[in-house]
């Protein structure tokens, strides 16, 4: 058994190295606790994390270890207590809230476990939302949205509503929506866990195919071991800390070994 402290230190050192080389997403020493009054639950205990441009990065770990919290911090949707977060050179610590919101609007795409499509809007309208938020005109936004619906294999369904689709199809729409404005960072929290395993596989394949791009970093939180083979790297978390970072080759050997 290795002691947790030595693991933490090695992860921190590794994060530092990666940052120096690639420096896309850098989280250093972040502490975050939830609660109020006397009752506080620490969710992140001085975590170090980094992800690089062009990579598909998985975050895995047991339930409650802080994966979603880490993702929320990186996305700028959650304030934290201590430490530093920098996303493509933007230091969230030093930016006012409005700036972070604007940064998120332009640079980050989201895919949620529950899809979170707006039920009263058509698929085209749903997909065009990020473009509209960024000030694009409606017609231009909708034609771009249509292109993306085609890319995710939903040609001809643009005027349907989310409730008319299966879960897998809805997640395809969500992928189109997350990427339509060409964000530099794509954040996905358990994108396959609401889907059956075949569909989940198809969604991971699609994600790996359309999301991976030279300037873009894709971070995916997952429980599903069969998705490991798509990763360039993987961060393992436990109890609010990073315990290990594995490269893709190692993972594929690992997955191969378990099959």
């Amino acid at each position, binding site marked *: 058994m290795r002691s947790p402290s030595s693991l933490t230190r090695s992860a921190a050192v590794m994060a530092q190295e990666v940052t120096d080389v690639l420096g896309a997403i850098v989280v250093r020493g972040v502490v975050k606790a939830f609660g109020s009054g006397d009752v506080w639950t620490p969710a992140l205990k001085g975590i170090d994390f980094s992800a690089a441009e062009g990579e598909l990065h998985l975050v895995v770990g047991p339930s409650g270890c802080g994966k*979603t919290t880490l993702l929320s911090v990186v996305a700028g*949707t959650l304030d934290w207590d201590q430490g530093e977060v920098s996303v493509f050179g933007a230091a969230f610590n030093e930016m006012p809230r409005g700036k972070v919101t*604007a940064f998120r*609007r332009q640079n980050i795409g*989201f895919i949620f476990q529950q899809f*979170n499509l707006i039920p009263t809007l058509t698929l085209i309208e749903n997909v065009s*939302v990020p473009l509209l*938020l960024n000030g694009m005109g409606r017609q231009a936004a909708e034609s771009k949205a249509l292109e993306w619906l085609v890319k995710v294999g939903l040609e001809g369904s643009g005027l349907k509503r989310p409730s008319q689709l299966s879960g897998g199809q809805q997640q395809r729409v969500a992928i189109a929506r997350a990427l339509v404005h060409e964000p530099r960072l794509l954040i996905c929290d358990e994108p396959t866990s609401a889907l059956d395993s075949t569909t989940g596989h198809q969604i991971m394949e699609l994600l790996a195919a359309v999301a991976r791009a030279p300037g873009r970093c894709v971070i995916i939180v997952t429980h599903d071991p069969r998705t490991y083979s798509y990763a360039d790297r993987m961060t393992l978390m436990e109890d609010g800390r990073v315990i290990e970072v594995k490269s893709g080759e190692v993972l594929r050997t690992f997955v191969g070994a378990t099959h």
Partner: protein
Amino acid sequence: MYLIALKMLLGDRAKYFMLVGGLTFSSLLMTQQNGVFQGLLSWTTSHMRNMRASIWVVESRVEQVNETKALRDTDLNRVRSVEGVDFAVPLFQGVMKARAPDGSDKQVQLIGLHGGTLFGRPTAMLEGDISQLRVANSVVVDELAADPSRLGAGLGRRLRLGDTFEINDREARVVGICRTDRHFFGYPYVFTSYDQAIQYAPRQRKMLSMILAEPKAGLSAEEVARRISTETGMKAYTVPEFERSTIDWVWRNTGIPSSFMTTIILGFLVGVAVCGQTFYSFVLENLKNLGALKAMGASNGLLAGMLLLQAMTVGVIGFGMGLGLTAVFGIIGAQKGSLPFKMVPLHLLQSFGAVLIICVLAALFGIRKVARLEPAIVFRG
């Protein structure tokens, strides 16, 4: 994004209809009740529209046009002798019992006009000749008086020229039919000459109800009214002054304003309650969507704008429908002629303002909720 906001609203049919319905009901209650109230208030001052005179001279304690405290006959000459008075004439007004041809008693508003000038006579004669009032026992009645339900009772038709009825056991022969503005008491108008009116009315020591006066050319009514008041000790009102004083009196001395105000406030509260509740639950149901928008970078300002737009949209539609229903009520009322109703642009604006306030309040609850919303909630299952 604002179009998206509207689509989100319209997509939720049940809530949309609930919101529009609530606001329609609330607007209807507010505009209709206010219309009836304004109509009733205008009925309290109908004397001044039916007997157009610039200056109304009354006993010093009289505050409103429907009240009479008799003056002395000599008061007429005191008014006439005030500098700046062109002419002044006596006026009798009183509620009398009239007997229809079928023998039933009806209350009428008897007006006695100065026989020489007939000053204060009705402006819209439909039949007959007002100058016939100088003949003994003759009267001019308004359309309401001529109705088979009033003095036409027993004839099976409306009163015609030459028909007779009785006022306090004295014969009254119809020599003209006129159109008047409805009076607050609901009694029809019967016009006759001043001297004849005194014959009809029960004998009393003082019979002169009011004095109507006009200022000399080039002088304002206010100025001359002021002089009459100071020089004679009576109270002289111009028309706007007497209208205001009459309406003030109604506000101070009757339960009418407070009962209408209660209904109007109730309409407002119903609007706030229904619209506020419904809109808040609309926001709650959409919280995940709003959170997703927030995560995707929608600012609090934009989301607040979207919620306001949604609330205002149902507000404008609801107000429009409420106004439409009120207008239907007004038209039906106007056809029957028996319902007081008056829509004033200012009051419509007030109702519209009230509806907008309802909507802003409703939106504010939602905006507060959304402003506090952590966009991170969308990651939670």
